[in-house]
């Protein structure tokens, strides 16, 4: 007997005492919990997102679409970055004001982790942002690139379009996401509390996370 058959057989025998139950799953689990906590307007939701991101030590900036290229240029210059990873589908306008001395590094399949480790910063968009938890979610779309480009560089600038990409809650975020895409949920820079439960920001992922809330009004 294969282990597959053995395990499935054990499961069936283990459940021999349980009466048959054909309740459809939607009815088996009632969901009286909330879809979101509290009622906020668009501005209130963006404010909550900003506050929760900051609470977990992400650096939050706010801008309108017109000011975005200038702000990104400023953040990269202030960081002193010599190179920046650029996902293939990033809106070219976002880096239009960035100093041409800062090397643009393309997200290529051939790049080794060692090569990515020498890049200072990465700029991406996101798939959705969750106000209640201060979370941004990446789904590997062309404006976000492969998972590793937002993991190895030590400085991540992530642009969230407000209000189009902002939801209130975890249930609302899951509704928008596609499970078959590789997803990375990010809530602040990497952290550990493994030493006497003292929180230390910045272990293996980017130690600095800057989130730009770009208000464009068109969703």
């Amino acid at each position, binding site marked *: 007997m*294969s*282990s*597959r058959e*053995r*395990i*499935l*057989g*054990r*499961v069936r*025998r*283990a*459940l021999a005492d*349980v*009466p048959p*139950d054909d*309740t459809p*799953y939607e009815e*088996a*689990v*009632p*969901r009286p*919990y909330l879809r979101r*906590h509290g009622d906020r307007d668009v501005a209130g939701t963006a404010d909550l997102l900003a506050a*929760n991101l900051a609470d*977990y030590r992400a650096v939050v900036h706010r801008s309108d679409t017109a000011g975005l290229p200038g702000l990104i240029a400023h953040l990269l210059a202030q960081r002193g970055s010599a190179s920046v990873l650029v996902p293939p589908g990033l809106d070219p306008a976002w880096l239009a004001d960035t100093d041409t001395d800062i090397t643009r590094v393309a997200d290529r*399949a051939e790049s080794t*982790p060692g090569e990515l*480790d020498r890049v200072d910063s990465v700029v991406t968009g996101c798939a959705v942002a969750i106000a209640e*938890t*201060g979370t941004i979610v990446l789904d*590997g779309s062309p404006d976000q690139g*492969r*998972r*590793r480009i937002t*993991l*190895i560089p030590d400085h991540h600038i992530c642009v969230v379009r407000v209000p189009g990409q902002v939801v209130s809650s*975890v249930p609302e975020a*899951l509704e928008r996401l596609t*499970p*078959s*895409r*590789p*997803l*990375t*949920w*990010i809530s602040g*820079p*990497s*952290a*550990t509390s*493994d*030493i*006497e*439960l*003292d929180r*230390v920001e*910045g*272990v*293996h*992922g980017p130690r600095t996370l800057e989130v730009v809330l770009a208000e464009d009004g068109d969703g």
Partner: protein
Amino acid sequence: MSTTYLGMPALPAPGDRAFPSFPQAAHAAVRDTTLRGNLRHATHTIRAKRAKAVAEVSDWAQLREAGRRIKDHTLRHLDRYLVQVEEAVTAAGGTVHWAANAAEANRIVADLVKATGEREVVKVKSMATQEIGLNEALQAEGIRAYETDLAELIVQLGKDRPSHILVPAIHRNRGEIRDIFRSEMSAWGRPAPEGLTDTPAELAEAARLHLREKFLRAKVGISGANFVVAETGTLVVVESEGNGRMCLTLPETLISVVGIEKIVPTWRDLEVFLQTLPRSSTAERMNPYTSMWTGTTDGDGPSTFHLVLLDNGRTDTLADQVGRQALRCIRCSACLNVCPVYERAGGHAYGSVYPGPIGAILSPQLRGTATDIDASLPYASSLCGACYEVCPVAIDIPEVLVHLRERVAEGGTATRGGNKVVLRPAKGHAAERAAMRAARWAFTHPGALAAGQRLASRTRRFHPRALPGPGRAWSAGRDLPAVPAEPFRDWWQRTRGGKDEAK
């Protein structure tokens, strides 16, 4: 019948009769004042934070109930969902393996690693791989497994054992950690920086540097998973440091070892657990990183993905009408942090990778109650009920403890390795003495007992005689054994520690 291995490298193997019973191991812990100080500080800190994080969501009770029902439903139809997971993961480009026990899982993983030609692997913290003793098994095959979670690294470098689910090195303070890094890192790779001090930020930086070279060259990653979604074949890993992301995305081959109870039926179910797990475990609104992947993705992440579905005593646990609820556990560790017995005894006394209240009900079910340690675990509690109150999937740990005590004392039927067996009563055997000592230990420690009784009176009303609603399916035809309504001390004296309860 083979014994189920629950991972205990540095002491006699857990199935080994030489492993001390709970009270013997706990006595040593209580005498260690550093350990007690570390534990007290840690559990009290996180306890307060958790309460705050939970209070932030007004629908906590509904989320908890939904979590309970999702897990019960999955377990009720586990055969169907296992097959669905297999189909979905295979369709997404992964390969599914089935392991009935620890030895089989270890052999599958070792063979997969060897087939890549690699001699080292990077690992994300995973209870399942600790449970099966994977690192030791790989070592025996000449494969080096590097733990990459900071606490796991501390444990591995210190040739130590984990003592907490979430913070495995909770028993070490910063000075000890610095000493371990200074003396041991060089044998494993990049040495600790010169002049390393004991500030947590510096220690974390030392770990970052030490592990980075391993991540960047790793070809094989090994993980567990917090959840597996049956309808989509998606695996979910919840973490803080980014070592999980490193192991899950940089290697060419990814092997995930996952207990069969980790399944949830639908994508939507994550909306419950992604709210309850972070708040219960790290007391955060959301943990820093959560990774979700479905099979393989062209050009992004590992090109080869293996899922090893692990039984190792879980189906035996499923066969127990009262005990099966332990399989709902999402390993948040909230029950450890509120447990007065855990706080004093420390994690090592529980004799497996599952410490605290959940360990006290899980280990004797996964492994049986044949050894002193496993027979004594159901008695390693004052039945105060604090664990049940905080549990995000409402596992009635006191109820299962009473049930297991009954079985130790009175004997009865159980399922071991898929077969029904009749257990002899512990009466007159060494197991009985071990159990009695554990009970005496738990209730002669005044702090443990006082805290216990205070909470007990508050939780009584949460213990129904029969489960309401669809939960009835589980308890059809029988009443649940009542948790004693009288104070523990009186109950103990009247029933001689539960021995006379069933009469």
